[in-house]
């Protein structure tokens, strides 16, 4: 019996199973499905707040961040995540309608105080725009807005005209009718 135990111990120690890693230098292989710190594709986010609503621990807040896409996200509000409360369940990722929120393999989030582990959009964003692109986008957004306003104005005008026409026709119609009646 003793020999058997000894044999197992020896086998275990000889057949090099790597158990202890040299941690900060050597990190274990993580799968693609890993649920670590979030990554926000700032070009896709529409600022709908679905992630904040589904969060069971209420750790996502929408805050202002200027380097986003003003065409898609007019108010420029992006999620800020408090990792002091996050339990990495991944419901926010499942819920995201624009598929812009994903989870990365990064898991090292230690900080010196609680504020350090509240990640603003700038900390989790990828694909932030540079100044030129931002200016272009702002221009595009402005144009889109103008276009929309123009269309709205046109529509309103058309509606008004239609209404006026209808009213005119109505008047006319009633006038005609009245005339007809008179004639009769």
């Amino acid at each position, binding site marked *: *019996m003793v020999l*058997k*135990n000894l044999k*197992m*111990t020896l086998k*275990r120690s000889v057949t090099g*199973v790597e*158990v202890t890693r040299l941690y900060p230098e050597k990190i274990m292989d*993580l*799968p*693609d*499905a*890993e*649920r670590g710190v979030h990554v926000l594709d700032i070009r896709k986010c529409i600022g709908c707040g679905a992630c904040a609503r*589904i*969060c*069971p621990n209420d750790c996502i807040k929408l805050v202002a961040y200027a380097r986003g896409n003003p065409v898609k996200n007019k108010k420029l509000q992006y999620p800020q995540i408090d990792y002091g409360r996050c*339990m*990495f*369940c*991944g*419901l926010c990722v*499942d819920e995201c309608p624009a598929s812009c929120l994903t*989870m990365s393999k990064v898991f090292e989030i230690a900080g010196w105080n609680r504020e350090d582990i509240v990640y603003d959009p700038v900390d989790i964003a990828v694909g932030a725009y540079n100044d030129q692109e931002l200016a272009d986008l702002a221009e595009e957004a402005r144009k889109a807005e103008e276009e929309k306003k123009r269309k709205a104005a046109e529509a309103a005008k058309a509606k008004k005209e239609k209404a006026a026409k209808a009213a005119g026709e109505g008047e006319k119609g009633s006038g005609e009718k009245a005339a007809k009646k008179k004639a009769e």
Partner: protein
Amino acid sequence: MTTANDVLAALQSAFPGVIEEAKVGPERQLWATIKPDRIVDVCKYLRDNHSFDHYTGAVGVDKIDEGLFEVTEMLASHGAHQVVALLKVKTKRDGPSVKSLTGLFWNANWYEREIWEMLGINFEGHPELYPLLLPDELVGVWPWRKDFKGYPDYNTAERAIERLTAEGYTEYSIPPTEAEVKAGTVQKERPKYPTFREREEMEIKGESEMILHMGPQHAVVPGPFLLDILVDGERVKKAFLDVGYIHKGIEKILENRTYMQGIPITDRLCYMASLTNNEAYCGAVERLLGIEAPERAQYIRIILEELSRIQSHLLGTAEFLTLIASAVYSPFLYMIIDREDVLTCIESVTGARINHSFVRFGGVRNDLPDGFKDMTLDTLKMIREKTEEYKELFLSDSIYRKRMEGVGVLSPHDARRLGVSGPPLRASDTPYDMRREDPYLLYKDLDFDVITRKEGDSKARVEVRLDEIFESCYIIEQCLDQIPSGPIMAEGIPKKIKPEPGEAYYRVEDHRGEMGFFVVSDGSDKPVKVKARGPVYAYMQALPPLLEGVYIADVVAIAGSMDACTSEVDR
């Protein structure tokens, strides 16, 4: 073969006019509303004539709109048939009282005590109505009632009063309300859990007796719980168990979350069994929604749950070996090393190592990644080899056998009476396994044995766990061969989950035994009541009678062989 309809017909002919409402649900479930004064007779009739000898638990629901409390008693059978009887009793909201079933079923004790302390329903004839999970100060505020406003009451800040004791601790007390003073119904003495001194005075009779503490913080308990043993010399005369040190109020939290947000919370019942907890909860909500997961999703669930069973049994055995030989740590570490590989397999699908939150209503979160099959088959091969080795090493070890054989014997009759399930029950020669008994998912298509042992002692319980690892490996291999391609989520699942009003009970075979979720919906996006019926709750309740008459040195061997988890008991 008995069906739910047969039982209903028999009940109606034996008790005319007693059954107010009855329906036969899916999966051999019989739902019936019984007149409150006849519930004991009905249960006695079912137990004696239709072999409903397994008391599964009781659920208390606060129906505040109707001014009623509902207590649902759940009865099943140990293998004679597969019908689950869910018998409802209604009682008024003011002065609620229900007849106790402790006279019929020994293990009704804790379930009823919990309903009493949480909802304030009196159980007539219950032998010991004192708090189980709550501290003494919280008795009388009835935290599961729907009109409970928090403690201390944040809305009025009136109910609880802070007071410094002479020793410098803060104590809370609840002064009587004006209405109570006017009506003259002020409770003079609240039922209290006996203190250590009181217990000593009550129980110690002779010169040779003393009370020994094990816990709440002790090297040999798997979580904080207090085990006081009254010893006479070397023998244990009586054992007292006090739980509730880590009561988290998970069932109350679930009532305040949407159905979807509840999934990560159920992980926290017990991190070893997070996948099966997800499965039980999602299964119950799926029954309410009337949807079923597609075939591929069901296979993925089975694969991951069986992998999870392997890692749980490995850690359970490892912990047990540490407990019986407290100083020796190597078996623990050997099994932990093997378990890491299993966890890596699970992680490659779910993305987390212990708290998975993986199962969804009508499917699963992720599909299997590329190369999962090869990785899992390699791991299973390794696990098989290693488990063989462990069995050879310590199950045939003469010292181990001397220590374990014939220690803490649960006879089949006792095991059924005490209401345990899972490996401890199967070690007592009762082949009761939910995967075979009440086949959920696609277990009915799979080939596996239900492992049993005749002895019922500590060694048999560990052997059952180790043998189940082989069965799980076999099940996973079949699934990996059979798994079809296809979608992993059912179609037509609403974005916002709002089930129709109704109740559902769904039970699965946890690693430790029978895990059931009872979910009540009122048509809104949050459940009215979620009850988690855990397996370890039943083990823990059965511990004191099991410990009577053993040596002090065997207490740890018996308690450890149960593979308990305090987190799930306290919830």
